[in-house]
């Protein structure tokens, strides 16, 4: 340790042994600050939008014949009194401390409602992400390594089709074949995790496939083109000049470099998967966040809409933060650049 910290000659100036961790820490901190800023701005946007939304929840709940006193009492109870700033701060403060407010319609804490649903939506999106990565990586690598050959054409044709298929339609077709005709799966509904992990996974299998396949098609295409770009790089030729076979060069030098653009897409896909899962939940009648949000919109239960939207946006921003960290782990240049 002591030795490596001494400053040397023209490339010195920095303490060599501590560069990676110090830079990584700085990079992480910077990304974290930007994460927090994004969350603050996003929450302001969401709050403002819900504020402009017409209709007073209290009068909506009590109907047109409500007494003014009852109305005022309810407004106070729902936290609708006070200036915009104080209400925003109260909402954010509540969110941070785990108090998401009370549902207008059900009069139960939003957190409880969200909590149950989250355990459907989050596993669904994660499962789909996992599945699409597991399909896309081998497919993309295979296509790239067989560039221009029949195998490549086949994979590319399949992905071209996969990209074009709407996931909810694909979901309906899966239900038609595997639930209605073959009866391997149930057509919808969710048994709950208390019936066991396998039962839960069984119920999420078809939805996850429906969500994952179109995304896998996109990811496989990105993986292929990114790999092909890397295969044209000078350092791949250097690797071959060392005596690596084409395959070795691809695995040892190509993949990690190709991963950088692929990570970006994985980050973006998470947001598509979340949005997609909201739609897919409709097909399979899954009691997830999607169902909750549509029920809340029709009941004008705006506090629930607000909280769920914030939660979705939070997950996307969080995911992007993780992707940024993954970048830096993959690419040492990034740590130095910031």
């Amino acid at each position, binding site marked *: 340790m002591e030795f490596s910290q001494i400053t040397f000659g023209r490339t010195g100036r920095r303490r060599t042994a501590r560069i990676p961790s110090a830079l990584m820490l700085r990079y992480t901190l910077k990304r974290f600050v*930007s994460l927090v*800023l*994004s969350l603050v*701005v*996003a929450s302001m*946007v*969401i709050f403002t*939008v*819900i504020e*402009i*939304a*017409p209709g007073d929840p209290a009068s909506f709940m009590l109907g047109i014949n409500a007494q003014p006193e009852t109305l005022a009492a309810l407004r106070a109870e729902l936290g609708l009194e006070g200036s915009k700033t104080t209400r925003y701060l109260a909402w954010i403060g509540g969110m941070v401390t785990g108090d998401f407010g009370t549902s207008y319609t059900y009069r139960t804490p939003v957190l409880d409602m969200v909590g149950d649903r989250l355990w459907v939506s989050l596993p669904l999106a994660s499962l789909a992400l996992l599945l699409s990565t597991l399909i896309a990586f081998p497919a993309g690598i295979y296509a790239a390594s067989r560039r221009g050959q029949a195998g490549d054409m086949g994979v590319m044709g399949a992905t*071209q*089709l996969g*990209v*074009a*298929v*709407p*996931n*909810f*339609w694909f979901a*309906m*077709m899966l*239900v*038609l074949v595997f639930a*209605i005709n073959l009866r391997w799966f149930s057509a919808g509904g969710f048994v709950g995790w208390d019936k066991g992990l396998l039962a839960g996974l069984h119920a999420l299998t078809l939805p996850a496939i429906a969500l994952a396949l179109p995304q896998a098609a996109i990811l496989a295409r990105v993986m292929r083109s990114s790999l092909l770009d890397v295969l044209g790089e000078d350092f791949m030729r250097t690797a071959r000049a060392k005596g690596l076979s084409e395959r070795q060069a691809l695995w040892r030098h190509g993949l990690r470099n190709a991963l950088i653009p692929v990570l970006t897409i994985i980050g*973006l896909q998470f*947001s*598509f998967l*979340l*949005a*997609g899962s*909201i*739609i897919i939940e*409709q*097909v399979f009648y899954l009691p997830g966040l*999607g169902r909750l*949000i*549509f029920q809340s*919109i029709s009941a004008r239960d*705006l506090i629930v*809409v607000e909280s769920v*939207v914030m939660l*979705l*946006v939070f997950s*996307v*921003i969080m995911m*992007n933060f993780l992707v940024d960290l993954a970048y830096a782990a993959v690419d040492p240049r990034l740590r130095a650049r910031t």
Partner: protein
Amino acid sequence: MNRNLITGAVLSGIFVAAALISFVWTPFDHSTLNIANKLKPPSGAHLLGTDHFGRDILSMIMVGARTSIAVAFVAVGIGMGVGVPLGLWAAARNGTWLDELIMRGNDLVFAFPSLVIAILITAIFGAGAVNAIIAIGIFNIPVFARITRGAALSLWQREFILAARVAGKSAARISGEHILPNVANLLIVQGTIQFSLGILAEAGLSYVGLGAQPPTPSWGRMLADAQTLVSIAPHMALVPGFAIIFTVLGLNLMGDGLRDLLDPRLRVARV
């Protein structure tokens, strides 16, 4: 000459033509109910069958193409109209707080999936096709801004831009005269891709009831109607599904074909 381009243009051309023809003629009136004739599979009278209200599905597909194409087209227009100038501006002011602001703003919009934007808009204005346009359009803005900025940044490093600067031209003028024409190809290709994504997104929004409202027919809503009947009348789900797939496939093939055709590197290789 370019198989992808031709196949794609023919496929998507069919649906554009169907949409246009629907203004003057459809086999049946798409909104006439005829319960007695409901859930008929494809036949000579109804080429693509009828739905649960006895409406002619071919007519609905033709009119629905109108909605899909219009929504996606306008949404791409919004994305390009706002995103491209933003991207050019950010690139011209690269490294300044303005660039940073535009790009952070982009990231922020990226954090709102189009469905979430649609949900928020619906919370304020209620559901409708216009909301779908706005939601998808907003989502398109950062896509175009980012791609324009990226391409513009590398062009700004080129010596011909330096030459233009030496000739005393302003950043705005250089952006219009030198940068934009050189990123146009990229934008055309990305435009077709976003167009196809827009059709998918519109279908999804209509399916969950956040897009076009009855009686305006749309492919997504046709699928929503078909869902409970999929086992007894699969054609109700298959027909709109294939309509979406073929249109999107056509547009994507066209995008690939255009990229091959317009990519200057490939063109040099051909010369």
